[in-house]
């Protein structure tokens, strides 16, 4: 083989490293194209049909979507999602940030405390749901505990109260994710230059003021990531609802994900389930695509 030849032979191209890279990546690429993009499209197609127990490819236009947005149960699920997402994100961000700042004050046993805050992330949502269901159970749980202490009129029946059930999900989800948010903020805080604190101190600024007007603005990208991650997590929450309330009482604590599962696998309303899945997907795309775009751009800028 001549290395002088400006044109590589076919054989050289085929045995070159770029070809081998393609060879390695091709299966994953094709599988992803099929099971991610292809399947999402397939779901879109199903949502435009009148399928019930089995897919039936008759085109009925956007009928399923019209039906979906008229359904009370879907409305409740969507309202619940926003209640859940805003409270869950708000609480996790505030508590996670405060805990991170406190832990960053050179406290004793920092490692132990951090591990305790983070361990819920290693537990499945099903287990979390079961634990909280037991504690929130009015007959034997926290309500009884407080009543036994003498507060006979104490009432904590969120789990069986249709108006409050969604807040039990907020509570359990917060319990699971708060430590994780703390860890992300802590990593961000550790990236802040210690010299900065010294300089601000010399200028006579107090700690709260340093955090509020110097450190927090520097953490803006971290806030952005945390909120996107939590929003995404709220959108896909499913297991926790199943094990904690199973959407009940009635369907008062349904979320779009549990709605989708119920209609698709429980009621044999395939097309309606698909339409709800498409709504979820569109929301995810609206959040994730700009996020990935900004991340990749950021990475390129750093690479330069």
């Amino acid at each position, binding site marked *: 083989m001549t290395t002088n030849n400006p044109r590589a032979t076919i054989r050289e191209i085929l045995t070159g*490293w*770029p070809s*081998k*890279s393609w060879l*390695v*990546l091709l*299966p*994953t*690429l094709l*599988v*992803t*194209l099929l*099971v991610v993009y292809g399947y999402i499209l*397939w*779901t879109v197609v199903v949502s435009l049909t009148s399928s019930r127990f089995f*897919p039936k490819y008759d085109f009925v236009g956007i009928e399923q979507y019209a039906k979906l947005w008229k359904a009370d149960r879907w409305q409740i699920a969507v309202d619940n999602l926003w209640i859940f997402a805003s409270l869950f994100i708000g609480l996790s961000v505030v508590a996670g940030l405060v805990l991170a700042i*406190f832990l960053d004050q050179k*406290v004793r046993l920092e490692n132990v*405390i951090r591990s305790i*805050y*983070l361990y819920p992330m*290693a*537990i*499945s*949502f*099903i*287990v*979390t749901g*079961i*634990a909280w269901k*037991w*504690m929130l159970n009015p007959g*034997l*749980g*926290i309500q009884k505990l407080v009543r036994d202490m003498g507060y006979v009129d104490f009432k904590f029946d969120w789990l069986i109260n249709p108006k409050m059930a969604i807040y039990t999900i907020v509570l359990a989800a917060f*319990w699971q994710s*708060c*430590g994780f948010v703390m860890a*992300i903020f802590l990593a961000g805080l550790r990236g802040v230059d210690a010299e900065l604190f010294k300089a601000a101190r010399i200028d006579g600024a107090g*700690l709260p003021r340093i955090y509020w007007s110097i450190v927090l603005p520097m953490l803006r990208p971290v806030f952005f*990531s945390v909120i996107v991650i939590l929003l995404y997590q709220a*959108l*896909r929450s*499913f297991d926790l609802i*199943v*094990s904690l309330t199973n959407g009940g009482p009635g369907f008062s604590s349904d979320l*779009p994900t549990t709605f*989708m*599962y119920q209609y*698709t*696998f429980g009621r044999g309303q*395939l097309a309606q389930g*698909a339409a*709800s*899945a498409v709504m*979820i*997907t569109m929301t995810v795309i609206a959040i994730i695509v700009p996020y*990935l775009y900004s*991340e*990749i751009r950021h990475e390129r800028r750093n690479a330069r």
Partner: protein
Amino acid sequence: MNAATLASPMPRSAVRTDFGRLLGWAAVYFTLFVFVLFFLGPLFVMITTSLKSIEEIRLGTLIGIPRHPTIQPWIDAWSNACVGVDCTGLSPFFLNTIYLVVPATLIPTAIGALNGYALTQVNFRGQNIVYAIILFGCFTPYQAILIPLAQTLGKLGLAGTINGLILAHVVYGLPFTTMFFRNFFISVPSDLAKAARIDGAGFFQTFRYVMLPMSLPIMVVVIIWQFTSIWNDFLFGVAFTSGRNVPIMVALNNIVSSSTGERPYNIDMASAMLAALPTLLVYVFAGKYFVRGLMAGSVKG
């Protein structure tokens, strides 16, 4: 410094700051401690409840220490807790999940390592697009693929089986494993691969003898990540398997929500603890790697 300044009383403001600082420390430790209780509470209640007899649960309080601790609930949870009339306990489902988790962890990890290497150590046209296409797979809304995947598994004759579930976890694990390895290999200088090439090493040899040994830490992270997500998975399990084939979390949910007569809360809690134990142990013994995966898996796209 002269005697006059030493003798003068401490300025008022200094006293206030000292007091304020003390108060600040107290507030910091108090808050941290309250949250320690908040996070440990459910675990404590689960463990104590799982060691009580059902009478003691009914008569005692939620946070009481078991007066006559018994491991009977754990034995029942393992070998004879019931789902409907099927009283096998968690053990067969525990084994199901081990049978599931080994291939569903190792296959995507191996492929992901190769992918990450190919995406970073070799330059070829279209590289970034290929990565972007795979990367988006990490954010697949699983609701949008449940119906087609169920159809496909049906066509393949894998409906309701563990092998079908393995396939599902393998294909949806690939974007994550690829992303982890790609983000690791991108920081490895490309001179290394070039040097190996000049020394006559081939594409796969360079991977095997230069890159793979180097990627050991990230491999541990990926294996732990994949293991934890599969062990804790519920959605795929409940959608694609049924009956005796379900993985542990589905079985756990079935045991806890099968309502015949009075709820055996102690057995429920013991079952939950048994199901949570493997991932908790991973957290205790390899917490560093677990946390690293957690951060890399969600913070970085």
